[in-house]
């Protein structure tokens, strides 16, 4: 059986950095396989190497042991088949919103570009903002533009590095809904790094829990609930407790408290 587009597989992956002359292992023997079209979250405390893992998938980190395979091919560098949304929106401040969205479409002609830009701005609900500058946008709007920019390239897989981390709680919940909507619409694999457990449960099919120093996979939890999910439901709370337990947080409060 041929591998479906957007299948990500990580085999025996290890990675170490050299800090002050001594090697520091950040990822150790990671094995993962994400089915095409699924939404995966990687959660873990700061410094557990989850962002490094994401950067390996993106192709920004190329020196590692083991294999990171996309559709069966080793990832050697960034490519148009993977989109990325960083925590900071990383819009180029000297380009307009429209130009930012078209940033990856440089090879297309103007007409085609405009069509795609319009389509994607509409997708993220920012039609009419194409000539605004990033400095004129709110954080949530800027992050939508960043998502539009990533999607405009038609990637097979979208990598999200704590995409909503810098937003306030309300905007954040709103954007989670938006992400879900986009994921359902685009039907592509999305891999999100986050440390917000609620967010991971709300959005993901699979939650990968990592622990730090060295970064290893502690647990992989499948979330089978139907969407849209209710954050207040008991099943939601149960999964949340299960995840928090991995961080030694679950034990401090009895279940009853959470319920």
């Amino acid at each position, binding site marked *: 059986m041929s591998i479906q587009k957007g299948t990500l597989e990580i085999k025996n992956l290890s990675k170490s950095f*050299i800090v*002050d*002359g*001594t090697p520091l292992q950040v990822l150790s023997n990671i094995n993962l396989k994400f089915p095409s079209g699924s939404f995966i979250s990687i959660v873990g405390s700061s410094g557990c190497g989850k962002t490094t893992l994401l950067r390996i998938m993106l192709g920004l980190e190329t020196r590692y042991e083991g294999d990171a395979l996309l559709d069966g091919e080793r990832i050697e560098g960034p490519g148009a088949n993977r989109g990325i949304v960083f925590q900071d929106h990383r819009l180029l401040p000297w380009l307009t919103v429209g130009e930012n969205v078209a940033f990856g479409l440089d090879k297309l002609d103007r007409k085609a570009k405009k069509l795609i830009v319009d389509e994607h701005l509409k997708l993220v609900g920012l039609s009419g903002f194409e000539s605004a500058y990033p400095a004129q946008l709110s954080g949530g709007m800027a992050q939508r533009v960043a998502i539009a920019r990533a999607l405009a390239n038609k990637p097979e897989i979208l990598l999200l590095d704590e995409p909503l981390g810098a937003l306030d709680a309300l905007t954040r919940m709103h954007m989670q809904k938006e992400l879900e909507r986009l994921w359902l619409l685009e039907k592509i694999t999305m891999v999100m790094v986050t440390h917000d457990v609620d967010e991971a449960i709300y959005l993901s099919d699979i939650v990968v829990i990592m622990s730090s120093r060295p970064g290893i996979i502690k647990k992989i939890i499948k979330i089978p609930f139907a969407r849209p999910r209710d954050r207040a439901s008991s099943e939601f709370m149960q999964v949340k407790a299960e995840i928090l337990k991995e961080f030694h947080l679950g034990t401090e409060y009895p279940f009853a408290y959470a319920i």
Partner: protein
Amino acid sequence: MQIMNIQNRVKIKVIGIALPIALLIVWHVFVSAGYVSPHILPLPETVLSTLVRLLTKGKLILMIAISLRRVVYGFLLGTASGFLLGLLMGLSRTAEKLFAPTFHTIRQVPLIGWIPLIVMWFGMNEVSRILVVAIGAFYPTTLNTFAGVRGVPRKYVELASVYGYKGLKLVRRIILPAALPSIITGFTLSLGMSWVLLVAAELLIETMAGIGKVIDIGRETFNMELVMVGIVTTGLLGFIMTKVVERAAQAAQKGRVFEQEQ
């Protein structure tokens, strides 16, 4: 790994020295092969030996000392007044509105342009030379002190006012420390400007001594060795002074990093 680092640093130094050495060799070959007369461009080794000779004879040291004194006085006068004006305009919007337009207009007059006027007002003497240096030092410090004071994040000022900091105490404990990096940048730029203007002042305002005078004597007596010695000396002194100020700046900031509002 440490060794690697040192090796690396040595490598970087070597790369950086390669070009000057190559230029010196080209210079030497160019002159000794007779493409250019040594009267117009003396050999590098002649310049070096003249420099050493003059240094050991002590005369050059005296000239340097006189120049340094002018720079120090001019720099202190210029930066002190620049600091005060910058602080005033930074602290008070009214002061800014009053003085800034005049300041920015007068700032557009090229510094060299002031020399004839200063000489006519104060004569061909030390006062004039020091004033020229001071004007050079004045602008960068004013601008950077102003920018630094104005750029102090509001949150610090708010925090301080919550704790009852007011007036001089607020300036001394909050505003000046927060503006320090910018002010120090101003001092560094001021020093550079002072040095440029010192030589201009010594060339254009007749003097009996100073490193500019060395260049002037060389020029008048058609002694290019002396001119080159003057150039090398001013360069070296400028380099040393810049390093000293940079070190002092680092010491003053003790590695602290401040936020500045854009």
